[in-house]
């Protein structure tokens, strides 16, 4: 009968489609080929991983699935054993993560820093202020809006730390607005409203020319944004790709990778986006 | 199968809907080549009977036999259905050309292209739509569409055709023309047919037998004359159009005739009832003659009454005249006669009819 013939043809085509799109059984050396790397959107957006991952994949034959989400979600994925290795920058949360036994081998990779940016008119008068907490106090006192990401990202976490240091609780206040968006979009909103926000230097530099915002406060140690790589604990989650996670983490601290990190961004932005720190102690960073 | 085996036979057929029986036929047999018309009011079960006979509707009880073989299993149902066709009140054509529509039954049977072509053209010709053969079904008039439906039904050379009021939604001239073509094709092909219709003229014209249905049962089945002139009960009588029905009691009998006493009068009728029996006297309106002068002595009509015209109602080609002669009579008079007699309401007239025109229904019968 025509219909059943057509039906069975269609079924084969559908199965073929599904098969075509499946990861496939291509030649791969490691037994468990996929590594799920959970990291943050700002790390992804900097473009660094687009350079490093292909090098790693070519070298080892692993296939890295980079899942870029907010810091909170990245850590949550690690807690549930749904990721193999984390590349994040929320030291307080990371320490808790390790303490609770979810991760092992927390190793420092690099740092960049945050900057407080705002309109050239700078009504809060924070330009040149050395202390980030001071700058925040001034912003709170002046009648200006502060744009927060409000999404539990690493940036948001850093922002909260600075407010705490300044002794101010901005939650619910009218001048403290939360976008719930990524770094690039939050910068765009701040630029639109000609007002202040906290941003990582890398994203700011990438978008600088269209924004019309200037760096007003920088260099304070508290503004350092330190990246660690953490392998998810295979004892807690036996199904994680422990070998792959270790391979990736080793790669990140390796000499060649650190060299690449050192020069990343210079050509495009005139200054590097990150500063390699493998092997150093966290407390030693900052001037 | 012998020549006497009916082509279609029903025993104790029952169909239920929502727990209540909507069809209950104890027996029915259809001879090959016969044309049976089903008439009856809406909801009588005509469509239900047709659909059940075509095995398109499930019966809850009873059996249907085609050429002596019972139709019950799925396999025999498909084979059976391929020997029949059905035409509905709506043409139900497919969204394609007339050619493709007529060919659809043949394509279902897997016939090859060349054979199909010959048959389609033949039946398009037979139903007078050959020039329209490449036209899209959406662009046909009501009559052309129904012709296509008929051609499609007959193209598969069915042994039985079921027709459910196929001409109801067509205007009279189209209906006329189609009935003529259907009649011709049925006779030419010798196909057995069962047709449900509202139009008694259609039934009278086409059928070998008529079945009157009421409330899911066959109230009476017989030749058109039998139904029309000797209805079995008051319901049938009123349905097939006998207008005058009078309550009476037999008072005297004669040689093959009886005298009934009805309200304010006596009617002579042909029949075998006994004195004292209660009867209904049924007189067809076309059998009543009206005149304005007193009729001659010795005229053949035995029943003569004087009365007054109460109402004149136009009925297409006739006038329906209601008379009060002490009891009510209804007569049909042609428009010409009405003018000649200068009939008008209130006018005194004489009504007469033969004893043979009076049909007696004995009160013990249903109704």
């Amino acid at each position, binding site marked *: 009968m025509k219909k059943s013939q057509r039906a069975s043809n269609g079924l084969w085509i559908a199965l073929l489609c599904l098969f075509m*799109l*499946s*990861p496939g059984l291509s030649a791969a050396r490691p037994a468990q080929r996929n590594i799920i790397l959970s990291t943050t959107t700002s790390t992804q957006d900097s473009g660094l991983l687009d350079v490093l991952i292909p090098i790693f994949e070519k070298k080892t034959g692993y296939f890295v*699935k980079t899942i870029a989400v907010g810091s909170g979600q990245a850590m949550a994925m690690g807690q549930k054993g749904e990721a193999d290795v984390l590349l994040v920058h929320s030291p307080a949360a990371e320490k808790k993560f390790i303490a609770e036994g979810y991760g092992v081998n927390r190793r420092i990779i690099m740092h960049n820093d945050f900057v407080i940016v705002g309109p050239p008119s700078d009504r809060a008068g924070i330009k040149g202020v050395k202390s980030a907490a001071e700058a925040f106090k001034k912003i709170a006192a002046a009648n200006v809006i502060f744009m927060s990401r409000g999404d539990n990202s690493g940036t948001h976490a850093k922002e909260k730390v600075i407010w705490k240091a300044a002794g101010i609780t901005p939650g619910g206040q009218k001048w403290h607005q939360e976008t719930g968006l990524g770094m690039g979009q939050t910068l765009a909103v701040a630029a639109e409203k000609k007002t202040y926000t906290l941003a990582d230097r890398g*994203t700011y530099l990438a978008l600088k020319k269209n924004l019309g915002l200037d760096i007003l406060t920088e260099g304070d140690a508290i503004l350092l944004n330190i990246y660690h790589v953490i392998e998810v604990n295979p004892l807690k989650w036996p*199904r994680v790709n422990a070998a792959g996670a270790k391979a990736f983490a080793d790669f990140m601290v390796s000499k060649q990778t650190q060299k690449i990190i050192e020069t990343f961004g210079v050509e495009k932005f005139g200054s590097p986006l990150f500063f390699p720190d493998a092997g150093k102690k966290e407390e030693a960073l900052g001037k | 199968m012998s020549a006497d085996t009916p082509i279609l036979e029903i025993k104790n057929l029952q169909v239920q809907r929502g727990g209540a029986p909507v069809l209950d036929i104890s027996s029915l047999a259809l001879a090959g080549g016969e044309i049976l018309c089903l008439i009856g009011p809406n909801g009588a079960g005509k469509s239900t009977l047709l659909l059940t006979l075509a095995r*398109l509707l499930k019966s809850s009880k009873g059996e249907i036999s085609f050429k002596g073989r019972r139709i019950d299993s799925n396999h025999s149902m498909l084979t059976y259905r391929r020997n029949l066709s059905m035409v*509905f009140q709506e043409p139900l054509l497919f969204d394609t050309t007339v050619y493709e529509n007529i060919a659809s039954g043949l394509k*279902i049977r897997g016939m090859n292209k060349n054979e199909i072509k010959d048959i389609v053209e033949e039946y398009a010709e037979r139903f007078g739509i050959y020039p329209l053969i490449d036209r899209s079904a959406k662009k046909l008039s009501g009559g052309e569409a129904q012709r296509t439906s008929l051609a499609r039904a007959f193209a598969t050379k069915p042994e039985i055709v079921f027709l459910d009021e196929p001409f109801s939604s067509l205007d009279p001239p189209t209906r006329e023309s189609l009935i003529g073509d259907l009649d011709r094709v049925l006779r030419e092909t010798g196909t057995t047919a069962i047709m449900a219709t509202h139009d008694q003229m259609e039934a009278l014209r086409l059928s070998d037998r008529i079945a009157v249905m009421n409330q899911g049962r066959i109230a009476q089945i017989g030749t058109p004359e039998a139904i029309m002139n000797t209805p079995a009960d008051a319901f049938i009588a009123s349905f097939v159009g006998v207008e005058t029905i009078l309550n009476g009691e037999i008072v005297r009998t004669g040689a093959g005739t009886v005298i009934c006493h009805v309200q304010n009068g006596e009617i002579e009728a042909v029949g075998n009832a006994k004195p004292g029996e209660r009867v209904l006297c049924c007189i067809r309106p076309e059998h009543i003659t009206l005149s304005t002068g007193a009729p001659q002595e010795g005229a053949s009509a035995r029943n003569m009454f004087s009365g007054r015209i109460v109402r004149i109602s136009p009925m297409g080609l006739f006038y329906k005249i209601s008379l009060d002669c002490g009891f009510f009579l209804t007569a049909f008079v042609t428009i010409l006669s009405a003018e000649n007699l200068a009939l008008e309401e209130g006018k005194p007239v004489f009504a007469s009819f033969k004893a043979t025109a009076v049909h007696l229904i004995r009160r013990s019968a249903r109704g």
Partner: protein
Amino acid sequence: MDIVVEGIKHAFILLLTLDREVLGITWLSLKISGSATFLSMFIGVSVGTAVALNQFPGRRFVVSLINTGMGLPPVVVGLFVTISLWRHGPLGFLEILYTPTAIVIAQTVIATPIVMGISLAAIQHLPANLKLQILALGATRLQMVWMLVKEARLPLLAAVMAGFGGVISEVGASIMVGGNIKGYSRVLTTATVMETGKGNFDIAMALSIILLLLAFTINAILTHIQQRERPR
């Protein structure tokens, strides 16, 4: 508004120079959404037709379910599919989270109720006696279903187009289950969100325009099939 103009210019540059990454993303979008539409067409038309043509206890409830499914929020689907597919979920052993296959699955779940619901309505809208007429012509049940589907092809193709439209434009579930992995599970919609998030509005606009062009082209083809007069 010059962002739109910039976007259009950028879009054409990307297309004309056959930018590899953009072409890859576009082709992947087409493959994924195409497969999902295809699967949903099969499941949707057959189940929708079956429900339309048969009486069974609880039928009305099933129809309500289908109609509700048409409005199923895609992100909800994405969440449920993610939970099912992740490593420690019931289907984790399949290891298809963060793959294009996962996106096909999520999109199929989104599109199928749409195709099903519209097919159901399309078949129910056919004249009541048409099914009986086809059976009276001697059709088997399978032939009957096929002929009814042919008769309803106009609204059924609309159903397929609705399903396709729903998934080619879908982003929430696609990000969740696909992971937006560069060169692997990144499609036009997820790439657009990402570029917007980065602040690269011109690239985002270009991708949006390409997406619109893609959707328009596919729908133009389907519309042509739907509207053409049957030959013969």
